[in-house]
């Protein structure tokens, strides 16, 4: 008897059929949901590629390197928008990452009392809740006039640099960059704060226990331990910056005349799409689709690059 029943113990015979079905069903459900994400992405990519085929054959790679956007003459080049997208998102990250990570450190490393910290953290999160159209309005009516004297100063003093070579007259790339900073700062801060809080307290103790200064512990132990989480937050922020439409459209000036200058009006791919899709037809639609494809590929490229950077960074640490 015992010999017979031994192996049978584990054959799941006793579990009710419904239980097994639920198990299997759940597995298929998760598989289906996961594939859905991939399918949606693929669908979007195919649609955009299909839509842009006409423009790709008409303008080829010159589309990427010319800045002549002329719906009347049916000539399209997206250099201005591509330059604007890259410059606004990259520079806003350059400003927002140190600020955001710095804020996150300030909010986690008992520098100020907990109560004050919680209030500050809440305020940072509220910043993320402001609708972008409101930020856009604020940028037009408050920030840009306030900034103008500083930007003019940059022009008069550093005007010999191509990036400051035009006289600021109102909307432009510089205010767009700053409004992007305001928009992505809470994302970076919130995610960096969470990653820092997840660093095990034992690691902190280890660092302080061998006589590390607060500075040394933060820079050499705590930040490296949180770097992959922080990098994830930065990627999210970059995605937001590249794709942000409303606030940028309101303050960037929507000009397709190429200029190196950050003080001049410019354009980004997203704001160009938002502005022109309504009244576009024929080749222009296809050209806009082409621009959208470029945006998608840019995002993809940046993501792959970021994965690589994160892996390098955490390799150094482990």
């Amino acid at each position: 008897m015992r010999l017979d029943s031994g192996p049978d113990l584990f054959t799941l015979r006793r579990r009710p059929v419904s239980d097994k079905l639920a198990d299997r069903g759940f597995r298929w459900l998760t598989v289906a949901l996961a594939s859905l994400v991939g399918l949606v992405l693929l669908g979007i990519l195919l649609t955009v590629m299909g839509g842009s085929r006409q423009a790709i054959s008409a303008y080829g790679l010159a589309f990427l390197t010319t800045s002549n956007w002329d719906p009347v003459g049916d000539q399209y080049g997206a250099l201005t928008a591509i330059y604007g997208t890259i410059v606004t998102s990259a520079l806003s990250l350059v400003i927002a990452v140190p600020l955001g990570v710095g804020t996150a450190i300030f909010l986690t490393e008992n520098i100020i009392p907990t109560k004050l910290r919680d209030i500050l953290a809440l305020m940072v999160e509220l910043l993320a809740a402001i609708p972008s159209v409101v930020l856009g309005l604020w940028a037009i009516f408050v920030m840009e006039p306030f900034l103008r004297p500083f930007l003019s100063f940059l022009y008069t003093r550093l005007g010999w640099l191509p990036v400051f070579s035009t006289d600021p007259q109102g909307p432009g790339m510089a205010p767009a960059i700053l409004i992007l900073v305001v928009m992505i700062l809470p994302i970076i801060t919130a995610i960096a704060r969470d990653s820092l809080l997840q660093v095990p307290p034992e690691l902190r103790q280890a660092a302080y226990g061998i006589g590390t200064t607060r500075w040394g512990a933060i820079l050499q132990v705590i930040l490296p331990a949180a770097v992959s989480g922080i990098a994830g937050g930065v990627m999210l922020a970059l995605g937001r910056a590249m794709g942000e439409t409303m606030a940028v459209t309101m303050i960037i000036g929507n000009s397709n005349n190429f200029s190196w200058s950050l003080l001049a009006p410019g354009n980004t791919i997203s704001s160009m799409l938002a502005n022109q899709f309504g009244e576009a037809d024929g080749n222009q639609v296809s050209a806009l689709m082409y621009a959208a494809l470029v945006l998608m590929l840019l995002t993809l490229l940046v993501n792959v690059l970021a994965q690589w950077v994160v892996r390098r960074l955490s390799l150094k640490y482990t």
Partner: protein
Amino acid sequence: MTSSSPTTSASSSSQSDICLSLENVGISYGTNEAVRNVFMDIPKGQVTAFIGPSGCGKSTVLRALNRMNDLIEGCTLKGRVLFHGQDLYARDVDAVEVRRRIGMVFQKPNPFPKSIYENIAFGARINGYKGDMDELVERSLRKAAIWDETKDKLKQSGCALSGGQQQRLCIARTVAIEPEVILMDEPCSALDPISTLKIEEMIHELKKSYTIVIVTHNMQQAVRVSDMTGFFNVQAKADIDGKVGCLEEFAPTEQIFNAPSQQATQDYVSGRFG
């Protein structure tokens, strides 16, 4: 010995042999008082063990010895902690410097997620060590009795070691900053008997050059490794609701385990506690 410490009987030690001295120390977390009225003279070059029931404030007192409590918000200290006569909590004392002189090993092994070599070199480097790093790494690992197990894989992550090896790595890391005192908070609580034995042997070795304070729940361990033993206990006090930790008795280890002067100590060491 201070006259205000009635239960202390290490009358042989003179002032110069005393490494750390607690004078009427009381520690609170916010409004919650953890320990009070601790008087203790920890002799230099010896092993001092803290024993006592859970929650009586052993770790709290231990952390007060190198100002690790500074990292806990709301933790305040009354009284004085003297290190060779100098008040560790005086205004102009740098807590970072204190922790470099008085190193700490924690209950849970906590190596940095770096290579074994880097785990040792990191602390030495931030402490301004200028000599031969390879030599220091080897010397520290040897002192912590883990050189033979790690010499072929110094480039591997410290977190890939077993728990007992990690703990010895952490001890090596503390040894590498060349402190005068090493504080250990239940260093063997997560370890098997063999690793425990290795660490105890190592403590015997280390006490030739360091003063060691160790918290342990293992009576046999206290007997095996320590010269002096402090028995902490929790007592209900008239002036507050809850209980508060205090130092019941502090004496040479033999005396604590064979002829304690307090009934509570007798009960605890003979297992009749509670």
